[in-house]
């Protein structure tokens, strides 16, 4: 008699997901498993479906077929096995299990840095105002912005806003953090401070899926890199393999070659 392994090792299990916008197929049966503590980076040319995939994970976008499970639970559809969309209330609960950081920060402009972090803690997690404030201050300290707790987003630089965006997402203690090109809208000199925060979260063991064009960062911080092209996963593996010169994938090679040509 043997002890059966856990049925579901993957924290995030994306299986055979397809999606079209009209006649354009943006995701073609994408499958991807992410285990706890893993940092998976998704790279690929623009229009390859990276951001759409990420937005499907917390059901900001729906998909046409396949399934996305977090801890074994279907994200957007009911557990009955039919493709019946969850109620808005259920969706809200499911989304609270994931955190997301956006390219354009998307802070709530009428709330202070602390207020941005506290909103979800209070309304979704049901924390008291004092508790929420303490948690907000803790995370603002972690991202180096303890002194900006009472500043409005408009008073912060892009890098600072994005660090608040990260704090807002992780303060909710999500099972998985989704990072959608979080440095793309930043001035080059502000990219470092944001990536530093992501690196420290990775060291804490936070499970992350990120879409990025920061190849050096992807190489250093990821446990795995996924290369997407034309809506499908074209290659996946450890950074050294994917970004190495040995790789036997014509599309990836030309993507990297173009990328290097434009960045160095």
């Amino acid at each position, binding site marked *: 008699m043997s002890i059966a392994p856990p049925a579901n090792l993957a924290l995030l299990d994306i299986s055979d997901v397809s999606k079209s916008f009209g006649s354009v197929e943006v995701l073609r049966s994408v499958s991807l498993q992410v285990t706890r503590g893993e940092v998976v980076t998704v790279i690929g040319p623009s229009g390859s479906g990276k951001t759409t995939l990420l937005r499907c994970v*917390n059901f*900001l976008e729906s998909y046409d077929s396949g399934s996305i499970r977090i801890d074994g639970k279907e994200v957007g559809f009911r557990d009955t096995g039919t493709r019946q969309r969850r109620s*808005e*209330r259920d969706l*809200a*609960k499911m*989304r*609270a*299990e*994931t*955190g*997301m950081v*956006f390219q*354009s*920060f*998307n*802070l*709530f*402009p*009428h709330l202070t840095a602390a207020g941005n972090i506290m*909103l*979800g803690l209070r*309304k*979704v997690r049901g924390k008291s105002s004092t508790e929420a404030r303490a948690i907000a201050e803790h995370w603002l300290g972690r991202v180096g912005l303890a002194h900006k707790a009472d500043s*409005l987003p408009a008073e912060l630089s892009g890098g600072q806003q994005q660090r608040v965006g990260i704090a*807002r*997402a992780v303060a*909710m203690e999500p099972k998985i953090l989704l990072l959608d090109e979080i440095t793309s809208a930043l001035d080059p000199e502000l990219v470092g401070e944001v990536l530093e925060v992501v690196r420290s979260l990775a060291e804490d063991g936070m499970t992350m899926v990120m879409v990025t064009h920061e190849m050096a960062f992807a190489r250093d911080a990821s446990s795995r890199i996924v290369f997407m092209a034309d809506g499908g996963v074209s290659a996946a593996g450890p950074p050294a393999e994917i970004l190495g010169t040995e790789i036997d994938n014509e599309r990836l090679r030309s993507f990297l070659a173009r990328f290097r040509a434009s960045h160095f």
Partner: protein
Amino acid sequence: MGYTLNFNLIWRHFDKLWGGLLLSLELAVISIAIGIVIGLLLAVWYVSAGRAVRTVIAAYVEFIRNVPLILLVYLVFYGLPTVVDIAYSAQTSFIATLSLYSGAYLVEVFRSGLEAVPRGQLDAGKAIGLTPWQRLVHVRLPTMLRITLPALSNTFLSLFKDTSVASVISVPELTYGAQWINFNTFRIVEVYLVVTAMYLLTGYALLYALRLVERRFRAAH
């Protein structure tokens, strides 16, 4: 022939004008308060509803916008009680009319304000697990309010001027007070000079106060 300005008679009856001004302000404040409730409810309903509801709301807005206010006032005060069995004072009737009137304009103001809230903010609200109602209250409405505040001030100011229409159904507001003095003293030039000045000064004062509020709001947000 010379016409000599004589304001003495105006000052003797100034209480009619002063009382009228206060009533004009009261009519405007009550009407915009009710109008804001109408406008907000319908705008929120509009952006979340299907085509049938949208058509009905749009029809209400277009009806109000394309019929002169004075006709609406007549319709509600003289027309409605002959069709349905209700009775109300001229003042109540006018408040009802002006509320429906401002409500229709404010539906448009609020609707475009709601639609101007950046998609990303709503996504962020979804991503932290807010329910649709929480997203509306904590994300969408605060931003919408900031966007629409200037339009709201303008609407209030024009409502204040529109209260003069109430004189046609003998509501004793400022313009009615002016007419009363005119009928009783025949000092037509003097009385309308004074009343114009009163509208002008009050309008300026209101605009100034509302701009201060707007600025504060912007600073606080």
